[in-house]
């Protein structure tokens, strides 16, 4: 009896330890980034371009680059993703085609991001002759984020009660009217939350833009979608692996990581918070 009690205590203690170890590691990780990052953070850091071969100056062009890459990617992927989700949710015929589409989405979602990078390079950069450009990078990221947006939108549409659809159809509304005036407006907050969460994912991706959009250093801001851009995640990588002055580059890399982390975590936290509020308020 006591042996069973003992093993119960030990077992539960071990599970708790696992949670504590994970949490401790992540706390150290986040504190390290925040602590080191804050020491280089100032106004110039976020408003100036890099100077003296990356050893001083700021990261403004990388912030602008990440902003545009992310915005364009979402703009490309959102309409496609939402329409696909509507198809899957409301039409869904023929069944065999649906099945193929679902398998495609699942497969796309599991492909490593470096393969998206190769795809973007082979198709957008070389085949369609976009060269290394913001457009090629944004399109690559759009393909990468598409399955995430589809899944989020479909889940949002699924959360609308069947009664709503039935009531609308019973009142004589057509399928299309029901989708556009009932389903979408009802699911909209949840769809937006999913989209916002995917923004965080896109902003932090490095491998897909390495060969399609990103450049280590440019003083100039992108003038059009056909220019190369700097981007925050790629900038961190470049600072850590290129250049010769590690002592000065590592602190800048921490600063860049902090900005990226704040960006991603704030956006995601906002989305999660909004979703929480929606769920609490919802009356059905």
């Amino acid at each position: 009896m006591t042996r069973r009690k003992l093993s119960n205590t030990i077992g539960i203690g071990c599970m708790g330890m696992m949670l504590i170890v994970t949490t401790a590691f992540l706390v150290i990780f986040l504190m390290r980034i925040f602590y080191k990052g804050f020491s280089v953070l100032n106004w110039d850091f976020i408003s100036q371009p890099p100077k003296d071969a990356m050893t001083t100056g700021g990261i403004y062009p990388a912030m602008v680059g990440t902003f545009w890459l992310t915005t364009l990617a979402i703009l490309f992927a959102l309409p496609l993703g939402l329409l696909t989700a509507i198809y899957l949710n409301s039409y869904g015929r023929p069944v065999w085609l649906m099945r193929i589409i679902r398998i495609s989405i699942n497969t796309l979602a599991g492909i490593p991001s470096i393969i998206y990078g190769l795809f973007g390079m082979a198709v957008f950069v070389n085949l369609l002759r976009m060269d290394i450009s913001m457009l090629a990078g944004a399109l690559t990221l759009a393909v990468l984020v598409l399955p995430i947006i589809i899944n989020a939108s479909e889940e949002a549409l699924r959360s609308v009660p069947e009664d709503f659809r039935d009531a609308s159809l019973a009142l004589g509304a057509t399928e299309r009217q029901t989708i556009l005036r009932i389903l979408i407006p009802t699911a909209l907050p949840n769809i937006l939350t999913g989209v916002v969460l995917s923004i965080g994912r896109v902003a932090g991706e490095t491998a897909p833009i390495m060969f399609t959009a990103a450049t280590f250093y440019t003083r100039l801001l992108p003038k059009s979608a056909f220019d190369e851009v700097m981007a925050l995640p790629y900038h961190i990588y470049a600072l850590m692996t290129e250049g010769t002055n590690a002592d000065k580059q590592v602190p800048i890399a921490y600063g860049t990581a902090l900005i990226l982390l704040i960006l991603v975590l704030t956006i995601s936290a906002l989305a999660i918070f909004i979703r929480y509020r929606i769920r609490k308020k919802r009356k059905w």
Partner: protein
Amino acid sequence: MNSYKEKFFKSITYIASLFTIVFLFGIIFSIIREGLPLFRIVSIKEFLFSTQWYPTHDEAEFGILTLIVGSVYVTLGALSIAIPLGLGSAIFISEIAGHRLREIAKPVIELLAGIPSVVYGLFGMAFLAPLVRQWFGLDTGLNIFTTSIILGVMIVPIIASMSEDAISTVPKNLREASLALGATKWETITRIVVPAAKSGIVGSILLGFGRAIGETMLVLMVAGGSAHIPRSIFQSARPMTSTIAAEMGETVVGDLHYRSLFAIAVVLFIITCVSNLVSELVFLKRVKR
């Protein structure tokens, strides 16, 4: 008029959904098209089973066994960290901790899953690797050991959240029956709850595997990158993903080196595809309602 609009809208959604198939086949087709011509010069057997990776030598050799082994070591290392941490945390959160902790843990896990891997890479390179080098008196801290730790922690959120989902779908009356028969909490967990959630848990581990073996930036920065078969976990490795990322910049479009990197991508694609499909179709089917 109205039925015309109906049809028009329906066809738009229909066409949009076909894009997913187009993209998937576009990806498969483009990596195969760019990679396949390599095998006119290098035999598939040599490519997969030779350990000689010297793509830029005059007598270039394209054997990727070293790179596959590198990927496998790093991934297994990461899983051996992530499985106990992720599963343990999931069990604690759903079976032992109260409602409050669970309410907090879920969104926090979701947040953590969104941290860019390049930031983990920075942490590994600038903080953990020097520590590991010091502790173990090594030449370099950029090795399989360091990579496994960070990659492992990175995939904990995936394993934890998916297996937590699986555990929470186990019916409550199974637990109650077990406790009523006099089993302790720990016995209920190990003999009732975990076996009942087994398929979801295995599915989550497979997903973590797919994610780890496909991870690029972190291994590129932390694994060290020397292309030889590692003899201990304190040696560096050159996984497939980091080989592609590190060497693509040196190639000329269409040359053999370029083709060989795409051929590596095909191998990587097959591995991740199989593990994800098995995970989705076999193990996670029942968890998702």
